[in-house]
């Protein structure tokens, strides 16, 4: 009886809360409606496959996929160490890993210049003098900027995924005779699959949308470092139809990522 009463009290929401929630929702949705309304549907495909827009889309796709691979390769070990190894200063390391998430992307770009800049970079001048490798103003620089910004999102998702795996599965696999490498590939990775998928999706979306660090570090060279977000920004002046078409593509991709994530949030099993 008291339980039912408690539920009634908790669910009797004051009117002003509902009004606030509705306003919040409208605030978030109105720009999306505005964007979709401005999309020129008839010329959509034409706007995407021609000129700077198609160049930007192609470059974005290639760089973001490579950056995501890079993120997975570096992020999985990082997440493992943060989740599974207790060491002194772990929270400090975690905070440092998460820093690019809250750092203004422009500052990230400036920091990348400090590290990989051709003339004054910490490592950049060595890379250039020894291998002739220049990251700034090159597609490689785009990849580095995107990976730098996306990595923390992946690490966060995978670390929490690793923490939620009950030890009994890996323990019983060990007792059955599987080595640590085989336990990792045949048990842990499989249990981690939903978190890996979610982390990869969100990191990819983040890489695809990267603007500030890219323009600061890699520049804005059409066909070389001008990714889709940079192209949207420039085209808004010269060719608004193309800008809206590109924005619409990014929006659709992000909705797709959210759908992937929702399956994870709802804990759906295979």
């Amino acid at each position: 009886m008291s339980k039912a009463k408690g539920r009634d009290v908790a669910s009797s929401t004051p009117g002003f809360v509902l009004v606030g929630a509705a306003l919040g929702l409208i605030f978030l949705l109105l720009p999306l409606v505005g964007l979709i309304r401005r999309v020129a549907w008839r010329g959509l495909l034409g706007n995407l496959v021609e000129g700077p827009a198609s160049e930007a889309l192609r470059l974005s796709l290639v760089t973001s996929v490579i950056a995501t691979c890079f993120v997975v390769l570096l992020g999985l070990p990082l997440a493992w160490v943060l989740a599974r190894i207790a060491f002194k200063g772990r929270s400090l390391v975690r905070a440092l890993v998460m820093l690019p998430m809250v750092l203004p992307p422009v500052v990230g770009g400036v920091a990348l210049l400090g590290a990989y800049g051709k003339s004054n970079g910490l490592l950049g001048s060595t890379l250039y003098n020894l291998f002739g490798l220049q990251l700034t103003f090159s597609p490689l620089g785009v990849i580095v900027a995107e990976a730098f910004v996306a990595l923390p999102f992946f690490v966060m998702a995978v670390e929490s995924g690793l923490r939620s795996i009950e030890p009994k599965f890996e323990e019983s696999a060990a007792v059955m005779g599987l080595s640590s490498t085989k336990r990792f590939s045949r048990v842990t990775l499989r249990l981690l699959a939903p978190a890996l998928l979610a982390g990869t999706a969100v990191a990819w979306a983040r890489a695809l949308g990267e603007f500030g660090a890219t323009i600061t570090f890699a520049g804005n060279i059409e066909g070389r470092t001008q990714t889709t977000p940079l192209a949207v920004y420039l085209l808004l002046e010269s060719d608004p139809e193309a800008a809206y078409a590109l924005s619409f593509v990014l929006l659709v991709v992000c909705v797709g990522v959210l759908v992937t994530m929702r399956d994870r949030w709802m804990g759906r099993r295979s």
Partner: protein
Amino acid sequence: MTLQLDGRITRGEFAIDVALSIGNEVLGITGPNGVGKTSILRVVAGLTSLSAGSLELSGVILDSPTQDIFVKPEYRNVGMMFQDHSLLPFRTAEENIVFALRARGVRVRVRVRDARAIAANQLEAAGIGQYRGLLPHQLSGGQSQRVCLTRALVGSPSVVLLDEPLSALDELARPLVRTNLRAALQRLDGPKIIVSHDSADIDALCDRVIAL
């Protein structure tokens, strides 16, 4: 084969000293919750290490902190059944048995087809053949427990460790499973330890009992 455990198990603030010698027999361990029954099984399996003393199997040292020896669980050839069922959630009942058979057969390679046949046989013998294609979350507590039990006994382990093996079974299924388990344990050579709260199970299955 003789299992010789003489040592101290530390879990946080709490420590127990254990001295056990188990030959070719089934040893029952009883006692209230939290005295460290499961910890003994974990030490034998190699999931926890001793803080002092030693663990030997037929004269081979498996764990000895003073001599800095610790044999990893994957090299101990132990068949263990965990209290909270640890079937891999993404594999069917049969695939879980196949997985164990193939994992155990690292030294002698077991082919998938052979492993499948053995698994199907064993599940049939355990009276749960009709559930072999189901995933763990589709099984009842008793069914999944019987799969775990089957899994712990396949592939001729040198040592068998069972943690509350029959606790999830209803009174109807229990006597038959108990009889089958007794027979299966007798067929296996080596030390076998059963942790249980149920005195009827202990009486029916064990050659010797110690209370912690």
